[in-house]
């Protein structure tokens, strides 16, 4: 690296960096408060954490319901095994830790103790995708790829505080196991400006548009909406289809969105391998729909450490990056740009 005059650089800050824009409306700990409200109605709701209650907004539940909170220590395998045991005796557990630990470290327990018997255990994973600057140890960039192959499991990637508040009771009401990609702390409030309600397993068209359709999930829906507004100023008409449930996927809504001549772009806070982009591509291919899918996703790499805005820009998740990508695609750039895929080879001879 060449050294020039020192310039003020952004810093990584705390483990859980906020991704809210300056001045954006936020709600504090929406998951914890939603769980508290649910617990008032349903006495069988219990909470567990693996030494991360404070960092997964579970502390809000712990403080309100100390007799219904179980501290399992930094032992994620036991966290998920014990959550299964509690469900076996009739309780409805929410078990929280970081996504990396729930999926990488304790996957065998999530799979065999929870998903195989189809128990109503709700696994809550914080720091999904790229929501911390601490590097690969804490960045769950492939959690969806790990979990999508797990039978019985419902997977939800909420956009904002509205999604989380409405998803929590829906996850508890669903009879089987679920995984929630948690956004915690000061979580942006976005979807209340739209005619929207979270519905498990359903995608929602948040805005219509003739030129481009952004199929987005998680916090990237917030960015997709911002990008759509910016593109509108440039006379590009952009639709946003929010897909908060990754599994089971609302393939009907996706096919409906794809059966047009609009540019189809997927937006996700996850590696390009095994997440929304490939789910959408598979949905289209399996249905014989031939659209090209432009994936906006994290690269198939172990990501750098650093400040979240810097990283979102570098890896293409920022609103600026979405706008630039859409313009480039509309300008007729080579389809191979920005992806690991080869340009069209010559057709095979029969």
């Amino acid at each position, binding site marked *: 690296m060449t050294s020039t005059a020192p310039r003020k650089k952004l810093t990584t800050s705390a483990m859980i960096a906020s991704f809210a824009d300056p001045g954006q409306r936020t709600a504090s700990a929406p998951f914890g408060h939603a769980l508290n409200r649910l617990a008032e109605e349903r006495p069988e709701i*219990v909470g567990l954490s693996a030494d991360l209650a404070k960092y997964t907004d579970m502390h809000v539940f712990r403080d309100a319901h100390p*007799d*219904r909170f*179980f501290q*399992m*220590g930094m*032992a994620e*395998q*036991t966290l*998920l*095994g*014990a*959550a*299964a*045991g*509690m*469900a*076996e*005796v*009739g*309780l409805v*557990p929410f078990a929280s830790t970081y996504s990396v630990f729930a999926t990488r470290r304790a996957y*065998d*327990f999530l799979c*065999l*103790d929870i998903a*195989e*018997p189809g128990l109503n255990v709700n696994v809550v994973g914080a720091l999904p995708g790229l929501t911390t600057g601490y590097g690969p140890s804490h960045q769950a960039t492939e959690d969806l790829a790990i979990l999508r192959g797990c039978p019985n499991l419902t997977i939800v990637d909420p956009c904002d505080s509205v999604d989380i508040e409405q998803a929590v009771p829906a996850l508890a009401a669903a009879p089987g196991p679920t995984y929630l990609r948690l956004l915690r702390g000061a979580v942006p409030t976005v979807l209340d400006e739209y005619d929207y309600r979270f519905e498990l397993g359903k995608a929602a068209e948040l805005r219509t548009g003739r030129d481009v359709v952004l199929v987005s999930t998680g916090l990237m829906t917030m960015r997709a909406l911002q990008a759509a507004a910016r593109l509108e100023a440039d006379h590009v008409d952009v639709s946003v289809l929010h897909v908060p449930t990754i599994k089971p996927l609302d393939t009907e809504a996706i096919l409906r969105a794809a059966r047009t001549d609009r540019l189809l772009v997927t937006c996700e806070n996850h590696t390009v391998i095994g997440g929304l982009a490939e789910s959408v591509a598979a949905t289209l291919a399996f249905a014989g729909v031939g659209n090209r899918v432009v994936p906006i996703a994290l690269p198939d790499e172990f990501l750098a450490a650093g400040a979240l805005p810097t990283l979102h820009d570098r890896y293409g998740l920022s609103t600026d990056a979405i706008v630039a990508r859409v313009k480039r695609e509309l300008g007729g750039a080579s389809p191979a740009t920005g992806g690991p895929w080869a340009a069209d080879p010559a057709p095979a001879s029969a």
Partner: protein
Amino acid sequence: MTSLSTPRTAAPSAGDQAERIARIRQAAYRIRRNALDMGEVQGQGYIGQALGVADVLAVVYTDQLRFRPEDPHWPDRDRFLLSIGHYAIAAYAAMAEAGIIPLEELETYGSDESRLPMSAMASYTPGMEISGGSLGHGLGVATGMALGLRHLGNPARVFNLLSDGELDEGSTWEAAMSCAHHGLDNVTAIVDVNALQADGPTAGVLRTEPVTDKWQAFGWHALRVDGNDVASLVAAFDEIGEHRGSPSVLICDTRVGSGVPLLETREKAHFMRVEEHEWQIARTQLEEGLAR
């Protein structure tokens, strides 16, 4: 059928106790015979382990566990979690003895469409609480069940049968720490120490001894007995039933093939091959052992 329940009060007289032990030995004999019959269906398998653990299961299923054979989902039942899925042959043999599954169903063991798969699964078999097999899961699930039952005010107990090989798994020790931390005296772990695992003797694969010291250091009330001595097992389980304040573990030293000299003396193998003509010899030897 009526519910089986163990009176946990009033020490039995010497005569009653002798009768109790004789009754359990008879049950252990029938469990072994059931296991041999099932082993013959497959021609090979985990018969050595089944014979080794038969006395432990006889005490658990016919003397300690509270359950209703006709109602496997009875909320107040004691839970018996089989971590070691490959011990299914032994568990089915004991569950048939306990009236939970019909005796005549045992001949379907490991066959297509059977409710009795080679590796035990809750979704297949009534009374099977968990799907074991991936080792190191049982005690973690037991932790949650015990926490949940206590939270609900349910006095049912949770038993978990582990193998000494399963002590290799780190998750077992996570759960051991958790049970002790939460003071789960409704948990009883049973460790079948047959000193043998898939690649050979436990001492050579990954040394787990001193087993008792380890559990004690983790905060458990730990007892160690000859797992093929019914009287010792009964005394230990009775003591554990009275223990309060911390989880208990009963470490049972068992002999692979116990009760059938032909198999006891054969070279120890995790997955034992038994020739066609040997099954009848094994049954005869088992019967002779009971008569002694």
